[in-house]
């Protein structure tokens, strides 16, 4: 019932609610109600719950059509979540009261653990008594290894470990964006090396066009920052803010862009004035690269007649630092790119580079920013190579596929309890569903190590204590409400860089 009194009361709650438990955005708190009732479900006399996160390996894959394997993942994004949602005083008396009221309405019952939260408020001044140990951000780790662990540090707060699961599991997103972006970097590196002999400009070969195609402003910031782990070109400005606020770089900004047209700035001139639009825009930006979408009516005509004839002189006068970048935006990506290159090649004579591939004159380039995902990217660079075009000629833009067309299932990101202490005894626990061996979880206390041959291995059941494999690569990053270890974005980028041996592997 929405009587004005009830509405006012709820609205009043909501105002204070807006900074409730575990969420410091002004939009409110963020906990799954199912979790609200879990404190009642653990065995009696449980004094610790220990859980971990991994990108599970998929040994029996029913989707054999998947071309890309994603054998390793980039660990990124925990620092954002910790700072934004888990650090400092996240519990206050008002928040507890308001949560109690809302959950009573939501469950139509009193199930909220008021006592447990008051304990945290009083003993820890509202800081969360949990410890999180994690792999350094930017680390590239094979699937099936522990990436971080979470455990309660106070016997009264055993239930807290899995309370934070929902928030922490959202790390699947920055991990998946960064991983998918890096796999595309490998593809580009391979073909760029093969067709030009070096990797110059690699970091600008895949530009983030995804701002409008993500589900929210917050997602845009997180996703764009994850792409910038591997590349430097972006139009999703929000990502740069996230990096600045939560990671920091020594350079003033971690990502760059160039002036570019959109359809409205071309079509607003009218169909018969496409040439005037093109001319006006390139003249506005004489000394930096400028990208001009050229398919509003007919991409091939635009390339052949307008760029290739009417405005040719203007283009040839541009320097290598300020090329015209022709942008197709429709049609089959590979076919369109090849045809555009062919037409431009006829009007602007290409040179052959040291590897025997054709390169357009330095004042003209192409950017393909439509329909680009990891599969079409591979098709296009392969197709260009077959037609003897160097990858120096092209860069790519990717939107939805870069930042949105991804799910938690792509890398099987999962958070599971592996160890509990009940009646003073530690017990290794796990799930092992009969109908899906891939969903089996790890047992006991976990640690991550490097073997002598340089591979990674996760030790289960507390075996890391035996010190057979040397140091645990998991470091404590969060303890009892404080962040105790942080990484700069420069460190993240360094950890995630393409290693020489990887590039060599790609070429053979």
């Amino acid at each position, binding site marked *: 019932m929405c009587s004005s009194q009830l509405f006012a009361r709820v609205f009043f709650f909501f105002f204070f609610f*807006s900074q409730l438990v575990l969420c410091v955005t002004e939009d409110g708190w963020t906990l799954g109600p199912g979790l609200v009732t879990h404190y*009642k479900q653990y065995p009696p006399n449980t004094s610790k719950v220990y859980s971990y996160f991994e990108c599970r390996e998929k040994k029996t894959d029913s989707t054999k059509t998947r071309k890309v394997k994603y054998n390793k993942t980039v660990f990124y994004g925990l620092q954002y979540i910790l700072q934004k949602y888990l650090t400092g005083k996240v519990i206050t008396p008002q928040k507890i009261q308001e949560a109690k009221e809302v959950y009573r309405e939501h469950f139509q019952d009193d199930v909220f653990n008021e006592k447990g939260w008051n304990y945290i408020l009083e003993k820890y001044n509202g800081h969360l008594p949990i410890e999180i140990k994690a792999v350094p951000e930017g680390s590239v780790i094979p699937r099936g290894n522990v990436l971080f662990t979470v455990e309660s540090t106070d016997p009264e707060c055993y239930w807290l470990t899995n309370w934070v699961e929902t928030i922490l599991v959202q790390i699947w997103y920055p991990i998946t964006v960064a991983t998918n972006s890096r796999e595309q970097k490998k593809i580009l590196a391979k073909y760029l090396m093969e067709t030009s002999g070096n990797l110059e400009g690699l970091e600008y070969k895949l530009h983030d066009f995804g701002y409008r195609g993500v589900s*929210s402003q917050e997602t845009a910031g997180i996703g764009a920052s994850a792409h910038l782990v591997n590349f430097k070109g972006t139009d999703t400005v929000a990502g740069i803010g996230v990096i600045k606020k939560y990671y920091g770089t020594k350079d003033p900004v971690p990502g760059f862009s160039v002036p570019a047209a959109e359809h409205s700035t071309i079509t607003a001139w009218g169909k018969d004035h496409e040439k005037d639009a093109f001319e006006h825009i390139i003249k506005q930006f004489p000394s930096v690269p400028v990208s001009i979408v050229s398919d509003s009516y007919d991409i091939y005509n635009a390339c052949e007649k307008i760029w290739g004839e009417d405005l040719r002189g203007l283009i040839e006068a541009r320097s290598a630092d300020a090329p015209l970048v022709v942008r197709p935006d429709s049609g089959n990506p590979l076919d369109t790119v090849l045809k555009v290159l062919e037409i431009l090649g006829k009007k602007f004579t290409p040179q052959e580079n040291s590897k025997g591939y054709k390169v357009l004159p330095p004042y003209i380039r192409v950017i393909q920013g439509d329909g680009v995902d990891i599969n079409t990217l591979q098709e296009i660079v392969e197709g260009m190579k077959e037609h003897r075009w160097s990858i120096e000629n092209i860069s790519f833009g990717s939107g939805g596929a870069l930042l949105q067309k991804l799910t938690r299932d792509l890398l099987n990101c999962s958070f599971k309890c592996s160890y509990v202490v009940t009646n003073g005894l530690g017990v290794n626990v796990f799930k092992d569903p009969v109908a899906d061996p891939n969903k089996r979880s790890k047992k006991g206390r976990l640690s991550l190590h490097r073997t002598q041959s340089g591979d990674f291995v996760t030790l289960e059941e507390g075996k890391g204590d035996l010190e057979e494999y040397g140091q645990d690569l998991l470091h404590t990053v969060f303890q009892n409400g404080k962040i105790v270890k942080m990484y700069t974005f420069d460190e993240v980028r360094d950890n995630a860089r393409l290693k020489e041996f990887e590039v060599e592997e790609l070429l053979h």
Partner: protein
Amino acid sequence: MAAPDFNFLLATDSYKITHYKQYPPNVNRVYSYFECRRRKDAQFNEVVFFGLQYLLKKYLTGPVITEEKIQEAKVFYQLHFKQAVFDEEGWRQVLEKHDGRLPIRIKAVPEGKIIPRGNVLFTVENTDPDFFWLTNYIETMLVQMWYPITVATISREFKKILAKHLKATSGSLEGLDFKLHDFGYRGVSSQESAALGGAAHLVNFCSTDTVAGLLMAQRYYSCPMAGFSIPAAEHSTIISWGRSREKEAFERLLDQFPSGPVSVVSDSYDIFKACKYIWGDKLKERVMERSEDSALVIRPDSGDPAETLIEVIKILEECFGSSLNSVGYKVLPSYLRIIQGDGIDLNDEGWSAENVFFGCGSALLQKLNRDTLHCAFKCSYVESNGKGMDVYKQPVTDPSKGSKRGRLSLRRNSDGFIETVERGVGKPEEDLLVTVFENGTILQEYSLDDIRKNCICTHGLVPHENESD
């Protein structure tokens, strides 16, 4: 309102900073629109319009420009483009002339309305000739409407399927609003998306674990409590008892939650044995003593969804029996139900849809993108020197990407079908688009109650069967 450090000037695609220099000289109006383009191979033919009010309230209303923000943007863009290209003066004019409020008009379909693909859903234009460049500056933010529209649409499509099966196998639509539970919180890309997606699902259903969606509905759509949930186990609360004590874990759940429904995930080791030997034998009496209002809801969570569901229901039938309902389908005893994590396709094996609830996670809130409904924002009309011109794109490489021309309106034609009128010839009195935002102020608001009424889902719904306009 957005967080205090949210800078509107940094909430756009970088290239849009450079567009004010690219329009023809003397342009004084740019008019654009948003649609879910029609495609021949499209899976979904109509969409639920939802979510604009959230964007307007959070990001576009009131004074969104301050001098501080202009300075921050100026410094940033200088570094980002490695040159000065930001239109500092233009934005200062917004500040000085309009107190930092956006001189923009947005007309939109009422929220909750069901509209066929290929129709205009909202239009945007500048109200002050000096700010023609503003219309498409806000494209990036407004195109994110694709998300709540797509979630609400997919959620409603699920509802249509569930309605059909429920009606056929039980004779009524009772309980339909609780049939699809949102489990998607952990599988979305951010807290904000969880809130928005969660709220979009609540347009059609009342069942959710995505609490952020409830708060979104409260704060932005005036609904004090839009959805409900029940106590439920997760794997950790079962496996923490140890493999040999699954029965004790289950029993604890029944003890802790004696009244009201309780959901228990039962596949930690072997779903079939759990159903047959624990629920169906060791704890059978405890299950049977529960009432209809405090049913045990068994949750499988692995294996092929359809096959698992059928096998589980057969085992439960063996242990607990079943009865036939008024339309001849089998129903488990009222104290026993199943919640299936995914796999909406109900099998025709003689079981009523009354037996099962569905939970949906990433398929509901994450496994969607702007191409699911082909959402696009395009300029269709400009004015220069007071003279109007219809504009459009029509790429020879993809006719389906052609855009509409001129000023647009939306009307119901004489056959009752909704259609878009182009080229400015629509009659204002027939226009279904409503001015919702003008010069920084929201002029029309909708509550979740209004929205729910607008998209009522009845069995056998046809596209134009929408009473309330």
